[in-house]
């Protein structure tokens, strides 16, 4: 406990200092981190007899020294009971089409709204509220059939027309609009009472992935949503729990939907729990203490420091369980390849060679928790490529120094400096104490070559994002090297396609694709082959073909290094020992679900044992 107290004090002091900076210098800070990398593994895997209730999962340990958690859920599933869940943040709003929804929010949304599709343990997508979905030959049309007899919490029946009416609202939503564009969705038509036809402007074999996301996939009652403010105060979905009340910044309560359509493998109606109270507790230490003290039964965390603290408590005898998940979200950073000297691959590769990844992970507090990153996918992902992992430049001081010397002594060097003059650049991260420590590691090694001068800067999350976005200069951004996070556990196309599309109109024009510009290409890296591979992966639904294309992309990234990686992101739901069912939930087909990626629980099959 005293170790953990020390850690908490240090973090609080750092947060206070950061807060003071914000006020004093308008350069500010908060404890957010758009960039850092906290990592973990808890790949839960079931041997998968779907009829069997007790699931012993988490078979495969990812390689490396990560202490992979193996959870077992045993005992009879019990209906009834209440849970209090501590979340890291309050959600901005209750409207999936309008409000940003990160991990904390998702935990609440998933109780109120069913999704049309859901991801499985192997990263595939299966129908959830839909009963089936089929594409046409070129993936420009998808015909789905809804389950019958489903009603919203206000008693309104769910039909295909509901989805059409939802689409009209989604087209105006600040969150849904971007997903409509990204998925190529153009039309939604009711072609039967329960049959809906999605028309796409471009082929997209990964379209079902978008129907598993909040912005397009979560089903809300369009009639109620006609008044967005009223809906925000009393949201209506078809989910396993119905909204009861919300006390902003304090508590959101959902209660069992007695008419829910879902049942478990034994035919018992879901959900098991009567009520869940979600409480935003921003301080990591307090959130864990709340669970240790019985104030809450679950603590949600995206921080490896908290995972380490929770492990310490558990090993010290606390009766808690860690449901850990090492996702594909990978920490690291990006070089702005439109800005010298990062327009030269020698500099980028040199700096990756000069980054001792293990030491960086240690500085981030991730040793034994976070696996080293080498690509867009974690070793637990079905998309992971051994070849890409082998190709990623490893720490090699001499090789890095040699590349820097080559650049520095090149009369044609891109930064316009004189031959022999040191390279100068800015490395910027949010003011998280662990990130600052990690920056120092890179700084020490790189500057020891005596070939670079690095200006380390820290900005709060919003400023950090703004600098990377660079809306004021045509989305080029003013940054040089910038901490960031990449990828997630959705279909790869969801994050890869916008990240490697042309970043500016000029580049798009030159590439002959003037209509495709993506502000989300933060590194400003564009390569025709990468772009074509990313597009190609949305033209086929053959897994092996798609995997080969994503492998090619990751191999190219290892060659051109517009990004660097620290480690994969560990997340966890820390529960008291009675909470069961977070890893063993199943889809209607009996297929095992994805567990709790990004600390997002599926609460409909959780029970208190």
């Amino acid at each position, binding site marked *: 406990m005293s170790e953990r107290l020390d850690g908490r004090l240090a973090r609080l002091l750092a947060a206070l200092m950061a807060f003071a900076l914000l006020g004093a210098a308008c350069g500010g800070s908060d404890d957010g981190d758009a960039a850092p990398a906290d990592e973990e593994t808890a790949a839960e895997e079931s041997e998968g007899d779907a009829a069997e209730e007790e699931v012993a999962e988490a078979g495969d340990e990812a390689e490396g020294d990560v202490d992979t958690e193996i959870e077992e859920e045993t005992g009879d599933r019990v209906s009834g009971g209440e849970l209090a869940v501590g979340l890291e943040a309050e959600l*901005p709003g209750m409207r999936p089409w309008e409000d940003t929804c990160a991990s904390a929010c998702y935990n609440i949304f998933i109780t109120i709204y069913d999704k049309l599709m859901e991801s499985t343990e192997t990263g595939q997508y299966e129908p959830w509220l839909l009963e089936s979905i089929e594409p046409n030959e070129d993936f420009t049309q998808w015909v789905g059939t809804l389950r019958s007899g489903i009603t919203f919490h206000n008693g309104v029946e769910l039909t295909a027309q509901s989805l059409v009416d939802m689409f009209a609202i989604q087209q105006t939503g*600040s969150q849904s609009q971007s997903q409509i564009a990204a998925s190529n969705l153009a039309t939604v038509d009711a072609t039967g009472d329960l049959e809906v036809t999605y028309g796409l402007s471009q082929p997209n074999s990964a379209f079902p992935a978008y129907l598993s996301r909040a912005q397009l996939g979560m089903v809300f009652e369009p009639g109620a949503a006609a008044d967005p403010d009223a809906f925000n105060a009393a949201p209506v979905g078809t989910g396993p729990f119905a909204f009861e009340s919300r006390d902003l910044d304090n508590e959101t309560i959902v209660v069992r939907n007695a008419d829910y359509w879902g049942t478990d493998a034994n035919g018992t109606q879901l959900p098991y729990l009567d009520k869940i109270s979600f409480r935003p507790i921003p301080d990591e230490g307090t959130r864990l203490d709340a669970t240790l003290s019985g104030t809450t039964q679950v603590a949600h965390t995206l921080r490896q420091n908290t995972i380490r603290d929770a492990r310490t408590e558990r090993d010290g005898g606390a009766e808690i369980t860690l449901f850990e998940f090492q996702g594909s979200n990978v920490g690291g950073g990006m070089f702005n390849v439109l800005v010298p000297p990062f327009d030269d691959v020698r500099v980028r590769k040199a700096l990756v060679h000069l980054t001792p990844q293990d030491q960086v992970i240690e500085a981030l507090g991730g040793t034994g928790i976070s696996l080293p990153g080498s690509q867009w996918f974690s070793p637990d992902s079905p998309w992971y490529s051994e070849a890409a992992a082998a190709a990623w430049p490893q720490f090699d001081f001499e090789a890095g120094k040699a590349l820097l010397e080559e650049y520095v002594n090149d009369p044609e060097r891109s930064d316009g400096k004189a031959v022999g003059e040191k390279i100068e650049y800015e490395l910027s991260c949010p003011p998280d104490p662990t990130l600052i420590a990690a920056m120092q590691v890179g700084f020490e090694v790189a500057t020891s070559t005596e070939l670079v001068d690095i200006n380390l800067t820290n900005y709060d999350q919003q400023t950090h994002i703004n600098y990377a976005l660079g809306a004021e200069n045509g989305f080029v951004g003013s940054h040089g090297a910038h901490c960031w996070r990449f990828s997630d556990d959705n279909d790869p196309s969801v994050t890869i396609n916008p990240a490697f599309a042309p970043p500016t109109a000029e580049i798009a024009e030159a590439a002959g694709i003037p209509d495709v510009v993506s502000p989300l290409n933060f590194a400003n890296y564009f390569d025709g082959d990468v772009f074509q591979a990313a597009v190609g992966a949305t033209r086929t639904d053959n897994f092996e073909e798609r995997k080969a294309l994503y492998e090619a992309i990751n191999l190219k990234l290892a060659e051109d290094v517009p990004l660097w990686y620290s480690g994969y992101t560990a997340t966890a739901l820390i529960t008291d020992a009675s909470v069961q069912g977070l890893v063993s939930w199943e889809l209607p087909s009996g297929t095992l679900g994805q567990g709790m990626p990004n600390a997002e629980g599926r609460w409909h099959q959780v029970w208190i044992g």
Partner: protein
Amino acid sequence: MARVLGIRLLRLVATLFAVTFLSFLMTSLLPGDPAVAVLGVEGIQNEELLLEVREELGLNEPLPVRYANWLGRAVTGDLGESYINRGVPVAQTIQERIPVTAQLAVMAIVIAILLAIPLGVLGAYKESRWPDTFSSAFAQVALSVPNFITGIFLIWLFSVTLRWLPASNWTRLSDGVWGNFKTAIMPATALAMTQMAIFSRLVRSDMIATLQENFVLAAKAKGLTDRFILLRHALRPSSLSLMTILGINFGALLGGTVVIETLFAIPGLGFRLINAISQRDIMVIQGITVFIAVVYVVVNTLVDLLYAVVDPRIRRS
């Protein structure tokens, strides 16, 4: 008295104007685009959407125009709407949170006074002897330890170890007095410690001075008990400084609950302010800042006026 009141009111208006202008200027100059915060990183798929949101939020207007628009509405009580929790008026946000923060501040002040007066009186009465040394040392420690550290310690002791009190969140008074007390007592105590130290030092030094006064010597000569003299004769004149500092500190507490509310996840003004800053919710930042400033200035004005009422010398001057 009317003249004093008039001058105070004029000063109040000038101060509020300066506060609103400066806070509007500072929050508007914060780097980070509220439109980006509204959309989230994933939402920024194209420039048009970003421009649309900026237009919707009125962010394309020049700063003076935005301030004038805001001020025009603010004087009628309309502090605008949250950028992030769309449709929620800032005034409503403040109104919902005042009871929480005010309760914490009041409880903290009460706890601080209840501890500070005995400690201060004891220190003065036993000046330079061990009880004085003890009370001074206790006050020194309380003053030196930041309130969030006290908070962490309290959570560890009363929640994790003893399991007597909830570690976080808030039970509203309407949901039960005992439940409310259980969620309020630790954060209020954490807030109270620094105040207690300041108050006890003030009471001690004022009372030491008071105890040298002739009327105290006269009371002693009349054979009154020490306890009677301390509590009936010496305490009241020794409380003038305490009263002034109470006013100042109450205002400061309203704005100073930020860290404690965040630590204990209490839905007060401070917690909302922190969220608003991280989300670049400028209307909420502005609204809460102005509200705290208004309370601070009004409370201090009232204390000044009360001071004049209590002490005829000040009134006459």
